[in-house]
């Protein structure tokens, strides 16, 4: 599977497959089944400058061919992550991408400041889907000008490459992608979950509102990846409803340089190693030299 290696921000990753943030715990939890170094890079659970308790239950709800989650960004805080969990990745020589968030610009800055560069840290992945509590709760990722501003400021704080993870709930995702790149983004992760709700007709209540994920999201994500990859030159990490190797290949062909797998792991905890092997097989069968040969080749 040597044919799978990719270059990302000057680092060589074993393969182009990552987990989606928040779908592989703090990393260690999957250890009984497979080693974390199987991944091209482990993407951390969303971390913040200070710990967050998260939301009361219910936090998850099955909805047709997908699920809605409202975990509420529960996390132990960026400092504890680096004290307690980072040594594990060091020991396994496993690359990581540090996903982080905040509810004010200052919280984003405070978190980014606490992350020291390290040969194993490939990038930071900034979650811009959080409500900005100083701006009436509008999410940071909604308006191109807000995205431009926060990206520019975070770039001034850190030397680590910065990936921006975008919400699909925007007027025009290409405008937001362009704004992120003008602000200095080194890459984009497309897309975050879609805001959604369920109604329980028995109790006539809404048990939860949250982010929709799973195969139901795939076509929306593919369109975002394709359109943004034509508009910007930075690498794109595609995510949304990837359940198998065919789905993963669709994302590469749409323009993604790497992919993330989230909800599928809950259905099959071995799906990540299976997809990695599947991509390798595809490269061999089609006599490609590397996956890059098919990135963005899908034509309209």
């Amino acid at each position: 599977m040597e044919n799978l290696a990719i270059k990302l921000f000057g680092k060589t990753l074993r393969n182009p497959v990552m987990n989606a943030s928040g779908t592989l715990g703090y990393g260690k939890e999957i250890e009984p089944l497979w080693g974390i170094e199987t991944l091209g890079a482990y993407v951390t659970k969303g971390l913040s400058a200070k710990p967050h308790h998260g939301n009361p239950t219910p936090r998850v709800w099955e909805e047709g061919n997908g699920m809605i989650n409202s975990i509420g960004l529960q996390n132990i805080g960026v400092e504890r992550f680096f004290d307690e969990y980072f040594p594990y990745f060091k020991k396994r020589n496993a690359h990581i991408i540090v996903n982080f968030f905040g509810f004010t610009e200052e919280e984003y800055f405070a978190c980014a400041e606490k992350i020291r560069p390290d040969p194993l840290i490939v990038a930071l992945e900034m979650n811009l889907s959080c409500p900005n509590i100083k701006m009436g709760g509008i999410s940071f990722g909604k308006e191109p000008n807000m995205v431009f501003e926060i990206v520019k400021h975070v770039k001034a704080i850190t030397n680590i490459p910065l990936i921006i993870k975008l919400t699909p709930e925007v007027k025009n995702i290409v405008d937001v992608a362009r704004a992120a790149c003008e602000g200095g983004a080194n890459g984009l992760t497309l897309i975050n979950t879609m805001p959604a709700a369920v109604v329980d007709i028995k109790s006539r209540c809404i048990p939860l509102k949250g982010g929709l994920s799973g195969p139901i999201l795939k076509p929306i994500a593919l369109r975002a990846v394709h359109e943004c990859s034509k508009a910007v030159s930075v690498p794109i990490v595609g995510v949304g409803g990837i359940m198998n190797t065919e789905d993963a290949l669709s994302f590469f062909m749409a323009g993604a340089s790497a992919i993330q797998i989230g909800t599928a792991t809950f259905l099959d905890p071995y799906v990540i190693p299976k997809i990695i092997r599947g991509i390798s097989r595809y490269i061999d069968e089609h006599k490609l030299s590397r996956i890059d040969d098919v990135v963005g080749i899908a034509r309209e």
Partner: protein
Amino acid sequence: MDDIEATILKNRNIVSDYYLLKLRLSKPIGKVLPGQFVMLKVPGNEVFLRRPFSVYDHDKNSLTLMYRVVGKGTRVLSNIKKNERTLVLGPLGNAFNVKRADKHIVVAGGIGIAGVHTLIKKLGKKAHIFFGCNTREELPLIADILEFNPMVATLDGSIGFAGNVIELLQGRIEPMMGKDTMIYACGPDGMVKSLRKMLEKHRTPCQVLVEERMACGLGLCFGCVIRTTDDAEPYKRVCKEGPVFDLWKISL
């Protein structure tokens, strides 16, 4: 722990909406401790996520789950026929902590019996068993533990004590209380709340097996939490830090 291919041997209706599902495993599941659970794929395409079930019984090559139809997943499951194939991930979660010197009291309400069944089998006649259900029709739920002389409460009074299982326990617990008494409980929220109220005075040691909606069962998603008394990190994962918790460390 592993994801094991399985074949449905039987999926039998016990009474009303209670079922017993027996699976043949393609390889041994290994050691399963009382209180542990599995994540079962419901065969077919109708159900998206896996569903968590306590291990009701098991041997080297088979696994038995007892379930009650409560929603879409279990409804679809109840219609699955013999010979269908599926997957079980497990064993998962932390088990009951059983110490040798304890006086053991096991309290179960309704389908809660599924969570403590292997514990009862392990403790055998050493345990005082209290079981509560709605009516005598539901007694088949404890058919294979009758040898351990369970005390039964029915809400309609059709057999045993007339009332709920905690009221039954209230009248019998005094002589069983010692400094090494351990209570194990699994049942509806109301049962656990009443039990806690009853034990409040002496804060008798009690382990409770809880349930919650789950997505992964492995501690990956933080979807299935319970609020605890740990102020620094109140929400603990039912699948990972549980499903068995110290009654005095959870918030009800």
